[in-house]
């Protein structure tokens, strides 16, 4: 009998664990860590070591503005998806049978459609002679077509739509896991509908809220397609900037420096978020 087949109280032997992890580990090393290190290298050695690209990034107000705008848009999109998504998750968790399946399908269908298609759909809706403008003029509400596409508002709406499922699903799964005994116990102890939500359902769903918010925020920071199509040049976000530097200006070193800065900001924010909100501990309590 080979050593790795032995089962010890439900634990895998180290060898078996390594065998199971190795395909994923190899993929990560080849497809993620190597390019990442390569990227960082490019931003620092050109070919001698220099910080010139980082100086340029920090020295030019335009680039800082784009970074701040990216953070701002990611924050607003997180808040919007939370405000729209929490009630949806709550209703989904309360409903049973085919009604829950229907709402779940409405939330999931957008996930099965590519972000590119959904973004183009927003372009079709919002462009100068698009459906929204035609309708407004047809109703006589406006005379000239409104400038909708390539505005920050349009970008926020489109990104909220595209990222909504990533907020709804984690909240839904946490809400579903709350035993029905708990709201009942709260009612039995004198709590009304609002108090039950405020003191029991909401606090127990926070791990899902944090997971969803973090996911949407991080996805927003690096979002490429939707900002490029719906946001346009006026609401340039950082991923689009990186893309421009790489594909149009062929300035790989500077693109690498921006990417490294984005990575650093993301990691910092995740660390701060975890610290402040103690995700692990909260998740431990929800079980």
């Amino acid at each position, binding site marked *: 009998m080979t050593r790795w087949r032995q089962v010890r109280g439900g634990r895998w032997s180290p060898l078996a664990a390594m065998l199971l992890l190795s395909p994923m580990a190899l993929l990560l090393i080849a497809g993620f860590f190597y390019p990442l290190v390569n990227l960082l290298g490019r931003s620092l050695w050109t070919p001698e070591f220099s910080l010139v690209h980082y100086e340029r990034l920090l020295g030019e107000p335009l680039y800082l503005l784009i970074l701040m705008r990216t953070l701002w848009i990611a924050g607003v999109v997180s808040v919007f998806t939370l405000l729209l998504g929490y009630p949806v998750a709550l209703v989904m968790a309360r409903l049973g049978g085919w009604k829950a399946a229907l709402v779940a399908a409405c939330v999931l269908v957008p996930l099965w459609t590519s972000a590119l298609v959904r973004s183009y759909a927003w372009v079709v809706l919002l462009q100068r002679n698009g459906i929204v403008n035609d309708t407004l003029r047809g109703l006589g509400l406006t005379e000239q077509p409104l400038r909708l596409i390539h505005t920050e508002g349009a970008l926020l709406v489109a990104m909220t739509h595209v990222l909504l499922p990533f907020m709804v699903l984690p909240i839904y799964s946490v809400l579903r896991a709350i035993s029905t*005994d*708990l709201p009942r116990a*709260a*009612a*039995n102890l*004198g709590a009304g509908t609002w108090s039950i939500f405020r003191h*029991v359902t909401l606090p127990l769903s926070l791990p899902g809220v944090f997971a969803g918010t973090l996911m949407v925020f991080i996805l927003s920071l690096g979002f490429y397609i939707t900002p490029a199509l719906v946001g346009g040049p006026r609401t340039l976000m950082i991923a689009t900037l990186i893309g421009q530097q790489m594909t149009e200006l062929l300035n790989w070193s500077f693109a690498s420096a921006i990417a490294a800065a984005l990575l650093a900001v993301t990691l910092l924010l995740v660390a701060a978020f975890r610290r402040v909100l103690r995700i692990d501990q*909260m998740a431990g309590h929800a079980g």
Partner: protein
Amino acid sequence: MAELKGAGGAPVSIAAVEKRFGSVAALQGVSLDAGAGEFLSLLGPSGSGKTTLLMMIAGFEIPDRGTIAIGGRDVTELPANQRNVGMVFQRYALFPHMTVAENIGFPLRMRGLARSEMSSRVEDALKLVRLDGYGTRLPSQLSGGQQQRVALARAVVFRPPVLLMDEPLAALDKKLRQAMQLEVRHLQRELGLTVLYVTHDQEEALTMSDRIAVLNDGRIEQIGRPEELYEMPASAFVADFIGETNFLSGDVVGLDARECRVLLDGDGLVTGRVAADGLAAGTGARLAVRPDRVRLGNAEGIEGTIAERIYSGAMLMLAVRIGETTTIMARGPSNGPDADRSVGDRVRVSWKPEDARVYPAAAER
């Protein structure tokens, strides 16, 4: 402790309650009165409707028909959060994100009590269940028995007149369960609460209750004191469910107002008290007799052979085979007169007619 004593218990009155879930009739015409300060158990097999009945008293289900009154007030349609009844859930239902003290303080907070009053009452409740000093822990840091006691403290801290408990001890091991039975009973007497206690464990019901209501298939089979249920079960179902019983089937051959003579299928004439309506000469019948009331001898009774001898410390159980199909169990002290009987011995089995009860054969199904 005096702080926790409320106005004592309130009577609970359930009248002709019916409840269906789709095609399942969970309760079919249940009526029940629990007196103020009474410990009343709802005993029955799984699926008999015990939880449904409790949920209606708590206000989580509304009966299709019938009424529920607490302390003389009709609460049939009153929302759960206005009923002011304590409840201990089967899996405790402690709030996992609140400390023990916050859990126990929750009902007081909902009632808008001042902070100082609240903490002194929480302290008292913790003392009552012997968990003083545990207030700052989280439920996940407690053992099953301790969580159970927190649930109990939380259910009585707001001085409800009625306490509902749904199989609260089912998840505990035997030793702990017996200790908690005493503790619950002690607390109930101390606070003067009316307790409705759901269990499927007949031994637990017998030891704890003032009265027991036996439920079967959404109906109450019998309500009475533990001794009444044990000594005078009103139906074969109750005789079977409470304690151990020998059932012997046969046909009625003689009948008067009190006693009934039955000719057993495997031959042999036996006598017992008439325990239910529906008996007539020539009809099928089932005679029930407790193993501890069966006497073994050599002179009178039906004849058989000892087929098994089961020793269990204080008691000795002997299985006596009568004919081809019937076995009668007899139990006595292990140092009693039957101690030196052994497997294969011929014996005669008898009992006093008043110790056996005869039910019509059809009434059981």
